[in-house]
């Protein structure tokens, strides 16, 4: 019941009152709020209080807002230990700076009779609440470490549920009292914004960066009428200039392009004999590569067996790359039983080419996203980005005369004479998968 009041009713009430109250005060009673600086009356202590306080609280507030507004991004960033540690350190340091500044401000406000002359009860309430809030925040940071990380699973989703008007207390029910008190105090402070000097936070003069230096205000309607007439005259002139400039610019660009082409045609730089030779030889190389490619494709379309290697040339720890019937990269290893292992080298994750170097665990690595595949079975390691095993390819072992001695069907079944003595002089071929696609 208490929780419902403090964490559902209070935030809504506080937020609504803050928004409406602030708008009313800014619009209807603008003369009533300002930074209410007391530097004029007491500058020395103010410097050591106001500057650290404001810098600290700005850092802290931005941190809190980031965590609440971008929970996904925040969570993924806090997943890295270094970032989490840095965030916690910066946050805690800013909190300490805040506290130091605040203490100076409080002592100054109590200690200086001149500052007391401009101190209201509300000022003291706000100072008290802020002190409690900063102390609570620092205590939470010390006692329940890594709040930057756990906030993503607790306060962030809770606040999100508040904003989507589906308040869900589950996320924060089991939080320690100190954390809950920190939240309640925050709601109280938000509630008090329109009724206290805190409203000055909405007066931050960002427009100053963009405005021109001088500010002239005419109250006389004749000036605006005169300038309106001038403006219309000038506007017409401006339109004309704009149009003319556009056409001129277009023609200019066109002319430059034409001149450039014509000039280069007649007077452009000529290639030297060596450069032409290089260009021609590169073209030739490309044509040869294409021809080879076509040859390979043709071979794969017309024949049912394609030579991979002599069986004796296959190694157990380093695969031999070849091109399979689908024009994909594949590789061949020597198995423990003397029979070849032919598997696709196209990673089942995103299609990178898997390395042919077998490590001590009998695995090959896909370098793109670090999937390890077992050479014997083709299966990826647990947790790898690739979920499916590398497919095994059917093969045949033929002797020099072209007689099939042993073969492995697409189904994995091995038939024929697999005795080492009878196959060691033979060659390994890939075979077209006659039952399946290929």
């Amino acid at each position, binding site marked *: 019941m208490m929780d419902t009041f403090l964490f559902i009713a209070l935030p809504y009430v506080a937020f609504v009152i803050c928004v409406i109250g602030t708008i009313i005060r800014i619009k209807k009673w603008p*003369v009533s709020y300002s*930074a*209410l600086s007391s530097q004029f*009356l007491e500058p020395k202590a103010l410097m050591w209080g106001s500057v650290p306080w404001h810098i600290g609280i700005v850092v802290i507030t931005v941190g809190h807002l980031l965590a609440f507004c971008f929970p996904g991004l925040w969570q993924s960033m806090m997943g890295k230990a270094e970032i989490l540690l840095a965030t916690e350190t910066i946050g805690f340091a800013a909190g300490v700076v805040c506290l130091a500044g605040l203490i100076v401000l409080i002592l100054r406000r109590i200690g200086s009779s001149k500052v007391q002359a401009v101190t209201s009860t509300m000022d003291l309430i706000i100072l008290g609440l802020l002190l409690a809030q900063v102390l609570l925040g620092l205590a939470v940071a010390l006692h329940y470490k890594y709040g930057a990380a756990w906030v993503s699973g607790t306060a962030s989703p809770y606040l999100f549920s508040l904003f989507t008007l589906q308040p869900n207390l589950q996320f924060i029910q089991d939080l320690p009292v100190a954390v809950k008190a920190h939240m309640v105090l925050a709601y109280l402070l938000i509630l008090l914004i329109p*009724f206290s000097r805190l409203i000055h936070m909405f007066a931050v*003069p960002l427009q100053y960066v963009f405005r021109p230096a*001088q500010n*002239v205000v005419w109250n006389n309607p004749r000036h605006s009428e005169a*300038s309106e007439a001038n403006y219309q005259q000038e506007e017409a002139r401006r339109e004309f200039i704009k149009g003319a400039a556009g056409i001129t610019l277009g023609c200019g660009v066109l002319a430059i392009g034409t001149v450039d082409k014509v000039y280069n045609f007649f007077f452009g730089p000529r290639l030297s004999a060596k450069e032409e030779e290089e260009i021609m030889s590169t073209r030739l190389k490309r044509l040869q590569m294409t021809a080879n490619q076509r040859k390979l494709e043709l071979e794969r379309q017309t024949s049912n067996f394609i030579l991979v290697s002599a069986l004796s040339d296959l190694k157990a720890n380093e695969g031999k790359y070849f091109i399979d019937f689908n024009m994909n990269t594949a590789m061949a290893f020597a198995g423990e039983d003397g029979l070849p292992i032919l598997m696709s080298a196209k990673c089942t994750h995103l299609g990178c080419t898997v390395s042919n170097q077998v490590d001590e665990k009998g695995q090959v690595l896909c370098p793109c996203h670090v999937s390890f595949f077992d050479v014997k079975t083709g299966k990826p390691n647990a947790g790898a980005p690739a979920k499916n095993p590398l497919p095994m390819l059917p093969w045949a072992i033929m002797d020099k005369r072209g007689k099939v001695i042993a073969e492995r069907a697409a189904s994995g079944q091995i038939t024929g004479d697999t005795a080492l003595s009878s196959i060691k002089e033979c060659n390994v071929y890939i075979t077209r998968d006659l039952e399946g696609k290929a």
Partner: protein
Amino acid sequence: MDIRAQVSMVFHLDKCIGCHTCSLACKNVWTDRPGAEYMWWNNVETKPGTGFPTLWEDQSHYKGGWKLNGKNLELLSQNKLDAFIKLFYNPNQPGLEDYYEPWTYQYENLFTAPEGDDQPTAIPVSQITGEPVDIVAGPNWDDDLSGSPLYAENDVNLDELTDEEREQLFEIERISMMYLPRICNHCANPSCVASCPSGALYKRGEDGIVLVNQDMCKGWRACVTACPYKKIYYNWKTGKSEKCILCYPKLETGQVPNCFQSCVGRIRYLGVLLYDADRIAACMSVPNHALIESQRSAICDPYDPKIIALARKNGISEEFIDAAQKSPIYKYVMKWKLALPLHIEYRTMPMLFYVPPLLPVMGKMDNGHYANTIDGFFSGLESARLPIKYLANLFSAGNVEIIEYVMKKLIAVRYYRRSLDMGDIDLVQINRMMREGNVSPEEAEEIYRLTALATVDQRFVIPPLQREEAISETCNPELCRGSCGLGVPVNVERGP
């Protein structure tokens, strides 16, 4: 060209007697409120002296005005970014100790004190805290050179003077001083307006009066630092800034501002100048010694038909143009070139001009008489008791020639009138002086008339401000106390 009108001012320092009537006329109407007790929108300083607030001319400390960075004018006090850090604490803002702690006396104690052995006294108490105060400073604390070793000798305008000149200035029996009444200059290039983070400060287009919109002022205090004349004051009670409003509620109803109206010496002149707002930045970006001429070049001739046409185009009324033609300010500043702005080197293009004082120009003592014979009169300028260099630091950014020109002209006019009234000066000599002073008899007569005999209507040429066109409400000065800006007068109170 962007022709604007400016209600501007001339103070003739030769006529100022330092009576402070202007200051009180202002204080009693505008700044006798809580939070404003220490403010003197109008004050009269004794020069040499440190002024109010103390040493306000020391911009190495207060960072007021503009600096020339290459060809660009930049605020000395802040740029667009460090202005945000200075919201929290402005390192160059004058504090209460640079002005004084306002106080009153416990007069009621004189009546309510219990019977005792001693007479009851009215002890001074602070108007801020109500506690007894030890009065260590006040407005005009160094009035009439009191405490000279502490105040007058620290005047920053004396910095460039030689030791001999300084010694001479403070020698007993030959000591000299002048009065410098100061109000807001209603500058054409105001650094306060440029510094305001909230954009609350503005210059009225019609008459050039610089005002603080109390609704928009958020108390960031940048203007207090940025105004080199320290004529913006922070109201510690309302948390907003205030400044001289040139009594605009009075001006708008055709009346003269309080400090002008109350001036005993009739030193003050008020009138319209037309100037080219497009040229402000350019003419404030020249070397120091050329600034005076540069400012004059931006002020326009109100009789030039081209200028009149451009002024009409900008919505300036016929009455304003008429007032600009009759303006005593135009005569002093442009026609006779007698009136100079104060500290033009701050580059805010002040629109309040001073005729430098002639009185202290005296030769050395000779057998108990001042050696100011006609033959040696102009030579007296070099050995003037108030050194020309000092006046140049005040009124011409150190350009001595400009001050000499003004002095020679003033002396020539004076001797011309003496020759007419007394007939004791040789005509040849008068003619020589008039030539050296660059003044014709007609002009000398005109200067004499406007300086010595001018009526109220000649001293104050106020155009109707057509307030009824802009604002429906009329503003009673009584109701407007403490409220600045336009429209409905609001009561400025400290918020929660």
